[in-house]
């Protein structure tokens, strides 16, 4: 008996593909793309195509487990009832001891971006005021930059790029991280459209572009200012600028006064001649689009970098132009009702916690908010009351955070650590209790993308593997247990139907966006939000002035420069002279590994021939890489077209007890507070030294 | 680079000795009528070796229980042909065995037929490795190497088996034959190495062999030492002591086994050269 179901890949990924899964007699046997989805067009990436193996993997944890001694690896299977008793007992004890729920902390992020996974937030809200991780390790600075410039964070439909006559890919590697955009780019090139790829290293996308421009890490903003300067000098400004922007004269003055092309060329590494040619081309070609990636804003000047690029787009008149714009991402299709998290119905979409992931319903609660990027550090500082219990969900902080020694210290201080996950991870090693969760083939869920406009429902295809449960079921069960032990102790519902809960999340806002009459209609298949394909089409912006803000009073009020000006990134020191860049690899999403068979034996440090020569290294030699945070051993691989002052270490699966983040501190990006409540993780500002090992 | 194919090493070397013995018996019989005892001994030992060899070959298969199917592609597969010939050789051997207990006329023609079948089996064995994909093998060398192994070890085995039963001149001609095989082997190897060197994979094979201590061990033990022992012995006209004969046989045996192992290990196929 064959059956098919609709699913959606729930990872933190541009593409958020719609999936059709096939079962035979209740066993998942294959997955394929859903042709109804016009962006992913019935095709899946290599990672999703491994899902069947993942669902039934031997390594998957199928039962609740408790660890006898953290890091001991001595796990024993327990019943759900015992697990729930342990959790509820700890919660009640801590709340009693401290008189409030602040010792209870939740650290959750993007392991599964499904809306029903917000049940975890809902559960914690139901406990009272708790401690929460807020912000994002990913894109905060850029989100704020676009919020300052445009008023909110929005991008065109990715298909809009198909109208472009010139495409600039700036610090984005879709060949590896957003592969469904590649056909559009390749077809554009076939039509003679020039695709220029700016990156710090020769990426797989760069290899397929018409031009590759190598930019010194962290200087993208200056390069954008250099282009803007040329546009001003050549008088190629958008003549309508005055009608929809604010502060352009001042910005132009700044360019004239402070930006020197020779200096710009020297710092960015792009020759003056190239800067001129590209700038003129960009200003004269209409429509021309820039797609800015996340990497360029993971610097201490990351927000400024993106603001400078936005400004460049505006000066040349590409903002609001069909096939133009500066595309970064969007969250407008995420206007779910938020009932699950316990949101106040009057809250605006932006403050609904969709971005901040923590709803603030001030009347009842005052959660203690810790930055997700400095979580361990800030949690250690909490004394009144201290953080005592930590629930990690959809995250692997012991692999993905910086300053891991602070995590070790925090673990020492915690009474109880619960982790819910599919597999053991670096973080589960520290946990006392492991709760097995379902995959997206085993529960209902609702998903939107931060890139395309499609929203859809994920149906359960198979029964949960082992005794795994969805986050929602876990949250209900915990609440049920709490109320059983101490009636009234948790305001979160104690049970329900997943499907009904899901339909409730499709509230009036969402129905309008999707053009649906009833929530049930979404069950028929993925739906594209009814936004016009071009962002800011009418050039009416959401900023306080309603204009594109070259000069932002809000930025100034937050202690940032009002205008996009050049702020240098951190520079290497003598002790640690090399920058470490850690781009995503095609086979992983952060620490979520897909092709287990390609697990590397060793870390591979990719060096340019220049760096290799400086350290007298050959391909295949072993090196020690270290800085004040930690050290890693690995193998050298020399490649052309890598930066001359950096080492590249892809986020690939490696057989190692140490994560690559052993080398990371927690430098913060300049922006992020405005929309996400905390600055981002400037992880490209990591510096190292290396030496040959014999 | 290939791998250590133990089942194949055992199978090819033993089957070649076995057939070498039969061919040797035929040779001796052509000169002087064979003594009954020698004939019986030769046939029995040859048969035991052949059976061990065939058994060993099964271990190479992922599914030995289905080995019978391997005879179904005579049209183009040398492996099918090899198996067919070895089965026929085995049938011939059964008849020889019957003859050794019921002496009757047709001895020589039966030896001749079994020898021919056996030699066809050896040639088929060798032809399996004549693959365009493996330049080091894609020539006549495998055929020569396999037949030389049969001639060399077959003759030496017969000398030892024959013992007192052999007339001095029979013994001498067998030893001369072995000596000849060694000289031809060395000559063939030099020729082989210089011809296959012309392409990258062949050169890699030669390079591998010449830099492998095992190869030099093989050349020293299996070629040079027996060559010297045989030359001295044959020249001095003295009778070889049994222990010298055993020594020569052991040296040559080790040499051939190593040689065969290296044959498999040193094979370099044409590959896709790309990353991943």
């Amino acid at each position: 008996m064959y059956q098919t179901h609709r699913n959606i890949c729930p990872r933190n990924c541009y593409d958020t593909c719609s999936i059709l899964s096939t079962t035979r007699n209740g066993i998942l046997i294959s997955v394929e793309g859903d042709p109804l989805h016009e962006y992913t067009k019935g095709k899946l990436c290599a990672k999703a195509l491994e899902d069947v193996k993942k669902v039934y993997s031997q390594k998957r944890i199928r039962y609740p487990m408790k660890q006898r001694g953290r890091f001991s690896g001595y796990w024993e299977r327990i019943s759900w009832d015992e697990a729930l008793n342990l959790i509820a007992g700890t919660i009640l004890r801590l709340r009693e001891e401290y008189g409030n729920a602040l010792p209870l902390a939740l650290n959750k992020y993007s392991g599964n971006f499904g809306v029903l996974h917000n049940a975890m937030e809902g559960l914690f809200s139901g406990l009272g005021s708790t401690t929460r991780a807020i912000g994002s390790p990913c894109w905060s600075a850029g989100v704020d930059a676009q919020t300052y410039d445009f008023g909110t964070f929005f991008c065109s439909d990715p298909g809009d790029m198909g109208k472009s006559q010139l495409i600039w890919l700036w610090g984005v590697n879709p060949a590896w991280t957003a592969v469904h955009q590649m056909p559009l780019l390749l077809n554009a090139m076939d039509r003679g459209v020039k695709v220029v790829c700016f990156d710090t290293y020769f990426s797989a996308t760069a290899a397929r572009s018409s031009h590759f421009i190598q930019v010194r890490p962290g200087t993208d903003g200056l390069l954008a200012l250099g282009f803007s300067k040329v546009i001003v000098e050549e008088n190629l400004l958008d003549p309508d600028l005055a009608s929809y922007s604010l502060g352009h004269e001042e910005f132009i003055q700044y360019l004239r006064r402070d930006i020197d092309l020779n200096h710009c060329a020297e710092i960015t590494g792009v020759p003056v001649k190239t800067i001129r040619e590209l700038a003129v081309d960009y200003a004269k070609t209409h429509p021309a689009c820039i797609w800015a990636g996340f990497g360029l804003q993971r610097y201490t000047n990351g927000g400024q970098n993106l603001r400078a690029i936005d400004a460049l787009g505006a000066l040349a008149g590409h903002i609001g132009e069909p096939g133009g714009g500066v595309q970064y991402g969007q969250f407008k299709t995420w206007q779910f009702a938020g009932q699950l998290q316990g949101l106040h119905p009057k809250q605006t979409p932006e403050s609904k916690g969709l971005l901040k992931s923590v709803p603030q319903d001030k009347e009842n609660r005052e959660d203690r908010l810790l930055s997700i990027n400095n979580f361990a550090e800030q949690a250690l500082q909490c004394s009144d009351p201290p953080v005592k219990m930590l629930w990690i969900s959809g995250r692997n902080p012991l692999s993905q955070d910086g300053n891991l020694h602070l995590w070790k210290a925090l673990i020492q201080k915690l009474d109880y650590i619960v982790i819910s996950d599919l597999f053991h991870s670096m973080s589960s090693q520290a946990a006392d209790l492991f709760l097995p969760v379902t995959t997206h083939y085993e529960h209902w869920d609702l998903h939107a993308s931060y890139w395309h406009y499609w929203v859809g429902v994920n149906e359960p295809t198979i029964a949960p593997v082992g005794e795994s449960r969805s986050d929602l079921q876990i949250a209900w069960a915990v609440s049920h247990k709490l109320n059983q032990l101490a009636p009234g102790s948790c305001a979160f519902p104690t049970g329900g139907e997943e499907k009904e809960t899901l339909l409730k999340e499709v509230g009036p806002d969402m129905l309008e966006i999707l053009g649906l009459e009833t929530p049930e209609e979404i069950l028929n298949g993925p739906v594209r939000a009814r936004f016009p394909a071009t962002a800011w089409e009418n050039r009416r912006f959401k900023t306080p002035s309603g204009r594109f803000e070259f000069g932002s009073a809000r930025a100034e009020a937050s202690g940032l420069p009002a205008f996009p000006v050049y702020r240098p990134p951190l520079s290497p020191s003598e002790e640690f002279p090399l920058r470490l860049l850690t781009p995503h690899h095609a086979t992983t999403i952060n620490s979520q590994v897909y092709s287990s068979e390609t697990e590397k034996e060793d870390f591979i440090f990719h060096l340019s021939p220049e760096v290799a020569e400086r350290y007298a290294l050959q391909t295949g030699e072993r090196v020690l890489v270290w800085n004040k945070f930690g050290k890693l051993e690995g193998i050298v691989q020399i490649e052309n077209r890598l930066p001359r002052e950096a080492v590249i270490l892809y986020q690939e699966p490696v057989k190692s007890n140490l994560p690559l983040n052993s080398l990371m501190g927690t430098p913060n990006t300049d922006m992020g507070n405005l929309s996400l409540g905390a600055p981002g993780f400037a992880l490209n500002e990591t510096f190292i030294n290396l030496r040959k090992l014999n | 680079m290939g791998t250590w194919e133990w089942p194949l090493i055992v199978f090819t070397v033993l089957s070649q000795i076995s057939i070498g013995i039969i061919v040797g018996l035929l040779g001796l019989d052509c000169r002087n009528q064979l003594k009954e005892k020698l004939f019986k001994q030769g046939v029995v030992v040859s048969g035991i070796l052949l059976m061990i060899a065939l058994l060993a070959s099964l271990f190479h298969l992922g599914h030995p229980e289905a080995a019978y199917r391997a005879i179904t592609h005579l049209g183009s597969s040398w492996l099918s042909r090899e198996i067919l010939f070895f089965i026929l050789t085995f049938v011939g051997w059964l008849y020889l065995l019957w003859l050794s207990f019921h002496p009757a006329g047709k001895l020589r023609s039966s030896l001749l037929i079994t020898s021919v079948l056996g030699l066809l089996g050896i040639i088929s064995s060798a032809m399996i490795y004549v693959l365009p994909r493996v330049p080091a093998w894609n020539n006549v060398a495998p055929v020569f190497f396999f037949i030389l192994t049969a001639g060399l070890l077959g003759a030496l085995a017969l000398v030892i088996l024959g013992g007192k039963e052999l007339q001095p001149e029979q013994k001498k001609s067998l030893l001369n034959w072995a000596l000849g095989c060694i000289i031809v082997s060395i000559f063939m190897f030099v020729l082989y190495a210089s011809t296959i060197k012309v392409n990258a994979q062949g050169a890699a094979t030669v390079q591998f062999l010449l830099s492998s201590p095992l190869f030099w061990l093989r050349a020293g033990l299996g070629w040079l030492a027996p060559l010297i022992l045989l030359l001295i012995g044959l020249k001095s006209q003295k009778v070889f002591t049994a222990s010298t004969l055993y020594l020569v046989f052991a040296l040559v045996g080790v040499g051939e086994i190593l040689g065969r192992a290296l044959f498999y290990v040193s094979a370099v196929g044409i590959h896709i050269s790309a990353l991943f």
Partner: protein
Amino acid sequence: MTKQLGFLHNSEKCVGCQGCEMACKNEYQTDAAPRWRQVFQLREEDYSLPTRMFFSMACNHCANPECLRVCPVKAYTKREDGIVVHDHDRCIGCRLCLMACPYDRPQFNPAQKKVEKCNLCYQRIDKGEKPACVAACIPEALQLVEINEALDQRMGVLKTLPGLPSPDITQPAIRFIGPKQGKQIRRD
């Protein structure tokens, strides 16, 4: 000549995502080790400029299949449409085909002690569908084609790529569109 189905791979469009490889695994749920299809990266030394170019190869359903010739159990057959089908049930795991194929496409499954390989999704082809790998390739770099004169006359269609064994050995039913180089500007 009779019909010969095969693959056309465009290195210019291929992004090396391994989607084709995984689609094959998804379709047949093969064990981890055997890779019926495999994505290779061309070596930089084979081109004048550094590349990140890939090609994807499964069984090439050769016109002159060495695997078929050497197989002692007739596990291999060549269909009317040129597909070289390996019958897993007949295979006895002698691994001769592994030695004979220049592309290492028959793959040994150590758990089953048998060989397996790409059968060009003939069950799908017979239903009029595309092979799973071809259907999955997002940039449409991998295509199912009929190998014939007309194809070989087409501009830019190559019979081999640097680093590949000579097509003379088995006459593989695969054609390539080779990588072009972008204009590269590096910092100096």
